[in-house]
């Protein structure tokens, strides 16, 4: 076994690629965002996004560096089910399709997922939800920032802190310049780059190693990776499904898209994005199974993808993987920055600090919020706290607790405010307990089941009788 020198790109090449792509994204951010003078243009891209951009932005946001780096990591740790389990993340996108349609029709003037919880369940549940959602948003941002630093260090030798700072700064700048319009526009290009890139990588791995050699080496060294009955992997499968559903159902990243897509686009866009997303973790992840055949010693599991690419493909592979992950990182970082800052702006600043703020004032404050969020993320990314997948699945305990309050709240009049609040709080606490007591792969599962039981009991014991028109805040204001 030999440890490859992962710094296959010299520092100058690394800086050159970073500079070129950064300049392109920042220019496009400015170009697409220059007409976003109104709050709705900046926060929700004018609420008129079409099918092509709709599908691409849903896909690109869900193809994160966690997909391109954690999919190989999970394939290395959990084998076949690691890849397939990750693919089940697409179920969340597909299940969100009908929800997106309902959200758009119930709340044509809505801004954030927080709006829904506030109007549907009242202020206490809204605050519980905001805590969960902001914790998750920041957690995911840290995970992405860290991934950026890890990737740049692994491939170019540029210090983790410098690489992480650069990638974060680029995304903050172009999101700040163009808002959601810049995010969605760049997402389209990033999706195309990512898809073409992972196809080339996968094809070269098949060509240079081959399925037979790969399978034989894995069977000799790590046979459990090919075992369809690996218990931890099967738990991971269900956990990942629920994690994906919970993340998408609650996160303002997806709600803001439901509000931004043109009427009639949301359902098809999310459904197709889910279908197209299914194979991506398999294509990106299976290259890790080449590790035994290549005799690679992987010092950190989350570096397996870049290291296999670098070992197999040398300079070209390193450049390719660098571009893929840089695009994947940017496409998710920008979305998350925009959506989390929307939540802070609309639900914290306007909701709690300045309820009288006008749309013009909010439009100006939006840029400061993005900048502040970028700085907070940067500070939290400075110490490399944990591996990417661990951080991702820690937050699973939080987000899975919101699945049932959101589904019930959107479709059932009987769902009550008290039930939703207790479900989110208890689901999170018990999910966290299971994360530490059992393992990362059950946190979301336990949290979702706990939350579901509480929502069901509360609807039976003390049902509400919600009036749907309450959710259309703009229409209500006009009547008043």
């Amino acid at each position, binding site marked *: 076994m030999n440890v490859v020198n992962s710094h296959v790109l010299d520092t100058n090449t690394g800086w050159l690629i970073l500079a070129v792509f950064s300049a392109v994204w920042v220019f496009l951010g400015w170009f697409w965002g220059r007409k976003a003078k109104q709050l709705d243009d900046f926060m929700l*891209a*004018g609420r*008129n*996004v*079409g*099918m*092509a*951009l709709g*599908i*691409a932005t849903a*896909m690109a946001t869900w193809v994160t560096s966690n997909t391109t780096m954690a999919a190989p990591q999970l394939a290395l740790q959990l084998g*076949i089910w690691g890849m397939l389990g990750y693919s089940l993340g697409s179920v969340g996108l597909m299940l969100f399709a009908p929800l997106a349609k309902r959200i758009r029709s119930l709340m044509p003037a809505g801004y954030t997922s927080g709006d829904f919880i506030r109007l549907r369940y009242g202020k206490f549940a809204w605050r519980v939800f905001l805590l969960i959602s902001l914790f998750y948003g920041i957690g995911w941002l840290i995970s992405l920032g860290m991934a950026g630093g890890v990737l740049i260090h692994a491939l170019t030798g540029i210090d983790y802190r410098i690489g992480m700072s650069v990638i974060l700064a680029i995304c903050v700048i172009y999101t700040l310049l163009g808002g959601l*319009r810049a995010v*969605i526009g760049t997402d*389209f290009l990033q*999706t*195309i780059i990512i*898809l*073409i890139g*992972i*196809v080339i990588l*996968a*094809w070269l791995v*098949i060509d240079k190693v081959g*399925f*037979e050699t*790969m*399978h*034989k080496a894995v*069977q000799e060294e790590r*046979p459990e990776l*090919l*075992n*369809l*009955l690996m218990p931890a992997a099967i738990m991971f499968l269900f956990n990942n499904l629920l994690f994906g559903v919970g993340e998408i159902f609650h996160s303002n990243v997806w709600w803001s898209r439901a509000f931004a897509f*043109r009427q009639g686009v949301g359902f098809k866009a999310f459904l197709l994005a889910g279908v*197209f997303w*299914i*194979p*991506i973790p*398999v*294509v990106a992840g*299976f290259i890790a*199974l080449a590790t035994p055949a290549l005799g690679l010693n992987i010092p950190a599991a989350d570096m397996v993808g870049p290291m296999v690419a670098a070992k197999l493909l040398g300079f070209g592979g390193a450049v390719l993987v660098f571009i893929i992950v840089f695009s994947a990182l940017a496409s998710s970082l920008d979305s998350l920055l925009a959506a989390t800052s929307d939540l802070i702006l609309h639900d914290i600043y306007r909701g709690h600090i300045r309820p009288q703020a006008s749309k013009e004032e909010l439009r100006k404050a939006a840029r400061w919020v993005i900048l502040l969020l970028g700085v907070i993320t940067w500070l939290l990314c400075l110490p490399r706290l944990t591996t990417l997948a661990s951080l991702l699945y820690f937050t699973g305990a939080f987000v899975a607790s919101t699945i049932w309050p959101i589904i019930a709240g959107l479709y059932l009049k009987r769902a009550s405010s008290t039930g939703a609040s207790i479900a989110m709080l208890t689901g999170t606490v018990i999910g966290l307990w299971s994360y530490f007591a059992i393992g990362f792969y059950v946190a979301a599962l336990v949290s979702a089941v706990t939350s579901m039981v509480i929502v069901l009991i509360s609807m039976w014991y003390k049902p509400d009788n919600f009036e749907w028109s309450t959710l259309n805040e703009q229409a209500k204001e006009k009547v008043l």
Partner: protein
Amino acid sequence: MIVSSGFLSILVSIALTVTVITPVVLIILWIKDWVRGQLW
């Protein structure tokens, strides 16, 4: 229950085919939206 190399190759080949088709579909849809003035 160990999967065979045939299973692995079929699984990856299907995934790879869908991933190849996706950018083509996206570009066709983009052109369609652009022609109709419905990009955003």
